[in-house]
């Protein structure tokens, strides 16, 4: 693994952020808008005094965590799509760059994105709604790491799909995360889902993160079992998705399709 090459690819994407309004909006504006909407809703529901539930913490915590997962997935998918749109695969893959280095550069881009978005959203939710995402101290960090890993896995999955099935599959880069959301128990506990869907929810590492977040809010105790289940599932999925990605990458090279993936 060559970190100079990884950072070169990261910089190639970070250069774009300096002058791209849509990219900056994606990073800051839309997440802030979401905080505003969900914050107003939280305040309204809190005024209704629903059985002593800490609505602001539950909803704002959920939306911030959800945005972190979404940012991690977008970092991978959009870094890949950027190379598709710019037809840059030939240029980068005739360098000594390894596929693993390409993937790790997207992981670190995801890390940068979630740190930035986390700080901004944490700041806004504290200033506007007095909600402190770090009120539970370092307990939140292991869960954020799990969201980063799951987002990365989802991102690699979408890129493998695009490699394998061509650019017409790029809709996955935008929509996959929304397919995951209903089963991730973001705003409600897994028990609120119908029995059959609960089994589906248990398959997603994100479900345990949101269940864990609620457990911390209710009890103030770090639910180690949720963390370990989430991490375990993440590691299994990452191994499977890496294998799938390498197979997809091999397939495009066998079929001479690397240069034919277009945006």
């Amino acid at each position, binding site marked *: 693994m060559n970190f100079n090459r990884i950072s070169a690819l990261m910089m190639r994407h970070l250069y774009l952020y300096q002058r791209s309004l849509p990219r900056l909006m994606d990073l800051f504006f839309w997440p802030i808008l979401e905080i505003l909407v969900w914050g107003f809703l939280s305040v309204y529901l809190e005024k209704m005094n629903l059985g002593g539930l800490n609505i602001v913490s539950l909803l704002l915590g959920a939306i911030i965590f959800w945005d972190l997962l979404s940012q991690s997935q977008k970092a991978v998918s959009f870094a890949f799509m950027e190379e598709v749109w710019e037809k840059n695969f030939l*240029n980068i893959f*005739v360098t000594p760059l*390894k596929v693993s280095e390409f993937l790790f550069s997207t992981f670190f881009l995801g890390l940068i994105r979630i740190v930035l978005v986390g700080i901004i959203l944490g700041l806004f939710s504290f200033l506007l709604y007095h909600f402190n995402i770090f009120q539970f101290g370092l307990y939140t960090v292991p869960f954020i790491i799990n969201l980063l890993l799951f987002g990365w896995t989802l991102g690699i999955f979408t890129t493998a799909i695009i490699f394998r099935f061509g650019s017409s599959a790029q809709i996955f880069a935008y929509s996959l995360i929304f397919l995951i959301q209903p089963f991730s128990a973001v705003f409600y506990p897994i028990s609120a889902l119908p029995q059959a869907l609960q089994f589906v929810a248990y398959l997603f590492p994100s479900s345990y993160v949101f269940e864990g977040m609620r457990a911390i809010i209710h009890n103030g105790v770090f639910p180690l079992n949720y963390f370990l289940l989430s991490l375990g599932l993440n590691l299994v999925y990452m191994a499977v998705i890496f294998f799938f990605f390498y197979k997809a990458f091999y397939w495009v090279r*066998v079929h001479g399709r690397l240069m034919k993936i277009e945006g």
Partner: protein
Amino acid sequence: MPIVEVKNLVKKFGDTTAVDNLTFEIEEGKITGLLGPNGAGKTTTIQMLLDLIIPTSGSIRIFGKEMKNSREEILSKINFSSPYVSLPTNLKVWENLTTFARLYGVKNIEKKIDELTTFFDIKDFLPKMTSALSTGQLTRLNLTKALLNDPALLFLDEPTASLDPDIADRTRQLLKRIQKERNVTILYTTHNMAEVEEICDRAIFIHHGKMKDDGAPADLIKKYGREDLNDVFLMIARGEAENVKS
């Protein structure tokens, strides 16, 4: 010693054989033209040499090593340029060059970029967006990128296509200068046979993925009894060269 050794190379896409049992070697410090009509298998061959396409069978050795065992080492000493493969247009020129210099592990990046952009007369464009460059400027930028790592082997895919005669001539002079001053081995594809006569030491003709002939341009013209390489190309492309004795 040959820098590139291609032996019995075959590439099939389903029922279509794009490259059919191709065998050739490329000598160090020479400019070799890889020629043939559209669909002859030139691009597929080059992409296999660059490890972008996996061959169906056969072997490729570059610098005496197999790509699958020494990919990183081989690719660090190779580069590629094509007017059909642009660098990202939404980056500034210096951003593109810095990115690729780092991907190739160039040591003194600023000095190297300064040296090459001066050589290609595009230093003033460094702060500009790549999208703002003209076709000729983009070609020179691509060539600058292609020389960042001081490659021992350079693949050039129609480097003068879509250039006006003046810029095309300057590009050829630059390539000759690069080859002479830096002893770079160049594999060159083009449809401009006059260009091949002017700068190539050797021409390899392929058609339907098969090797049709191989030799110095002047020798091939003599062998086929033609006035120029363009006529040789036409004979080979139209299948009229089958009866010519080797």
